[in-house]
């Protein structure tokens, strides 16, 4: 089957039309130069008409007759991408990508030239992530322009952009981007192996790709950083991580990730060290508070009301005395209400969204307190938790915290403070077991590297950062095969 179509008569206009199921966009322009027939087959809406007209048709028509041969045209046609050695499948997929199929029936040879006209969104500000300070452009859906943005900002010859294809039914192009001398080789190998093993019909978006490439599919916590900002991407690549871009998605995947990298933002580098260190602590503190505050309230109300200082106990007791539900149910109700508000607010058209936000937040909140369905202390607690979950700069980590909060509330309602601590134990063990591209998730906290802590917990002035963190951070790799517990 692997015959050179250029030498085979089997692919002509009728045959292509039947393979493409009679598509009305398929056109054939028959040229004749001095009784020498030339056929140009293309998909009307996929090509850029100027390129076809100026550089193919006009060029061929202006050539003297003796130059119109397969060899001469192949070497001299003024188009930058030409394919001459292809199979039938590739010819069809190239036609569908915007190539023009030029065939010379006399010589029974043909070649493909590129006249593509991809739809590209112009480069705009990032929607889901935003920085107060610093570059604000975001990636777009076109793979070529994304790679162009990266190359423009990182013009080192060691930057490798390896190409792979994923998707069985709908093939998409994927680029793996890394710096050859800095990136970790084991992670790269693991990533490439996993990409080859994937057998999904269609990879709709890069977040789908990230989910397929993860180490532990069942965990709540993300194991890859997903970001829209090129400066974040380039910063991670320069630290030794590996990035993956897929055609059709503005979100890039960065791995291996560790837990603390989800709490750092490139803004930390752009701002001065004092503010950055302070904000990093606030983020971690907000995350911890968001996870445990509601659970702590439920536990204290149900089992250990004596823990609350006596002055506050009066206030809380007063507001709780009207509520008919036990604290666990009250807390779950209010948390679910806030989640509903957030979901609805994300889907509403922008004109209605603002009003609904105010209605939901203020009116419903106030009304539930006055109706006696919840206590006002709980509303403060729940809104603090809601805010705290989004302090993580990466959206996926915020969602992980939102979800992890619910089992903790239920544990608190069932077993009180001990339940929360058992939840902490389970969480701790889970994070210890988790790996991202076979690198431990809790580095640099668990395989404790003092030198790397200055990259993740605090931010020192720039002259302290002489070494890249990748040297210490990615040293140890954990491969899980069917081993017993004492062989790891």
């Amino acid at each position, binding site marked *: 089957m692997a015959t050179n179509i250029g030498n085979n008569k089997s692919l002509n206009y009728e045959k292509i039309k039947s393979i493409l199921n009679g598509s009305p966009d398929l056109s054939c322009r028959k040229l004749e130069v001095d009784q020498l027939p030339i056929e140009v087959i293309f998909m009307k809406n996929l090509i850029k008409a100027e390129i076809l007209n100026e550089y193919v048709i006009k060029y061929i028509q202006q050539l003297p007759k003796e130059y119109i041969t397969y060899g001469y045209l192949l070497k001299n046609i003024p188009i930058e991408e030409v394919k001459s050695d292809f199979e039938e499948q590739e010819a069809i997929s190239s036609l569908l990508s915007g190539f023009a199929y030029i065939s010379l029936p006399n010589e029974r040879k043909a070649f493909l030239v590129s006249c593509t006209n991809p739809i590209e969104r112009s480069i705009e500000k990032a929607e889901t992530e935003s920085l107060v300070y610093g570059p604000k452009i975001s990636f777009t859906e076109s793979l070529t322009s994304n790679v162009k943005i990266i190359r423009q900002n990182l013009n080192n010859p060691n930057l490798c952009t390896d190409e792979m294809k994923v998707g069985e039914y709908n093939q998409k192009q994927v680029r793996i981007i890394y710096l050859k001398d800095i990136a970790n080789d084991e992670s790269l190998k693991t990533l490439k192996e996993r990409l080859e093993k994937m057998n999904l019909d269609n990879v709709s978006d890069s977040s789908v790709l990230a989910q397929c490439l993860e180490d532990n599919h069942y965990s709540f916590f993300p194991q890859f950083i997903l970001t829209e900002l090129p400066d974040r991407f380039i910063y991670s690549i320069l630290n030794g991580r590996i990035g993956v871009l897929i055609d059709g998605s503005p979100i890039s995947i960065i791995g291996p990730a560790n837990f603390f990298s989800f709490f750092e933002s490139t803004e930390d580098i752009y701002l001065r060290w004092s503010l950055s260190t302070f904000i990093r602590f606030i983020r971690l503190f907000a995350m911890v508070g968001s996870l445990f505050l509601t659970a702590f309230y439920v536990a204290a109300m149900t089992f250990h009301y004596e823990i609350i200082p006596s002055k506050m106990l009066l206030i809380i007791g007063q507001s709780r005395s009207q509520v008919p539900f036990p604290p666990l149910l009250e807390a779950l109700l209010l948390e679910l209400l806030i989640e509903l508000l957030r979901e609805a607010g994300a889907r509403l058209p922008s004109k209605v969204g603002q009003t609904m936000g105010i209605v939901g937040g203020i009116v419903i909140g106030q009304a539930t307190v006055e109706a006696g369905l919840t206590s006002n202390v709980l509303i403060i607690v729940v809104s603090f938790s809601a805010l705290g979950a989004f302090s993580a700069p990466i959206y996926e980590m915020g969602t992980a915290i939102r979800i992890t909060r619910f089992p903790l509330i239920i544990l608190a309602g069932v077993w009180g403070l001990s339940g*929360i601590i*058992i939840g902490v134990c389970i969480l701790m063990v889970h994070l*210890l*077991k988790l790996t991202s591209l076979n690198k431990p998730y809790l580095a640099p906290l668990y395989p404790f590297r003092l030198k790397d802590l200055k990259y993740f917990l605090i931010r020192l002035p720039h002259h302290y950062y002489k070494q890249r963190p990748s040297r210490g951070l990615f040293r140890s790799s*954990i491969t899980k095969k069917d081993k*017993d*517990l*004492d062989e*790891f």
Partner: protein
Amino acid sequence: METNTRNINAYLAFFIIHTSQIGMGILGVPKIIFLEANKDAWISIILSGLFISFLTWLIISILKRNKGKNLYEIHENLFGRFIGNIINLCIVIYFIELNYSIIISYIELAITWGYEGIYEWVGTLALILITIYAVLGGFRVIVGVCFLSFFMTIWMIFIIYQPLSSIDYIRILPVLSSTPDEILNGVFRSSYTMLGFETLFFIFPFIKEKKKLHLYSQLAIWFTIVLLLTITIISILYFSPKELEDSVWPLVSMISSVRFPFIERFEVLAISLWILVIFPNLCLSLFISSKGVKHIFNLKQKHGIWVISLFIFVSSFFITKRVDNDIFIDKIGLIGFYLWFIYPVFLYFIIAIKPKIFTRTKRS
């Protein structure tokens, strides 16, 4: 059977040994030693510490002579398969019972301090399940648990400053008013609390830098001893003698007098946080006992864990009263004393003498 492992750094041995020594014993140790040695309980602890330091040195030299094998393999080498495995079985049973004793004493503590009405088997089941989840992650996860739980609970030491405002120095004077007999009895009684350094026998093959191990183990043991010393001395100074004899968990009673502006009864929080303190103990003892089961019966550790946990869960229904708990813990302390305080000396001599006996028999 050489274990095929990827090793951990030596400094982690500090956390492993320290967290495996601090468990349920520290809550009640002032009272137990006070009953024997009265005001000189702190001298018992210092003597105990010196002896354990010496034992650590012995243990490490035993392990170094056998080149990276754990205790189960050493027994098999020395005494042959049959007798070695009988001794290994005793050790496995000791660790299973240790695990069990920690669980039942914690459940009893939790039920006394605020969870009346909770069935005991629920708490036991919860603790067993989280231990299984941790141990299934392998040795790396267990060491991580030791490391993280150390940092999550060590800040509780600094709470001691509050009871310090109501201590009376006269209670510890006059010094050395007890007979040496009573002091040595105090050492004997404190064995349940001091035990934990025997995990050194079993973690030795996993350590990368074996030379630094001695330094870190001694650091761990002296850190524990200093901690226990502080707590005992403050207990003696804080409680009156009769009060100390009557209280069951003196440390908890001391913590209950602590009060912060945002939390009133701190001991409720401290008792819940105590799960984090015992969690490394539970994980380590389950790991070591299942490793022993693997050595003796060739049952993979992944399956051995479930068998041992089922055994512990079923037997938790049988010992429920306070009195029974006390007797059980005393017995464990006794067995632990003979097994880990006296036996390593014995083992060291056997290992030191054995090559000499063999060379003599070869020559003759």
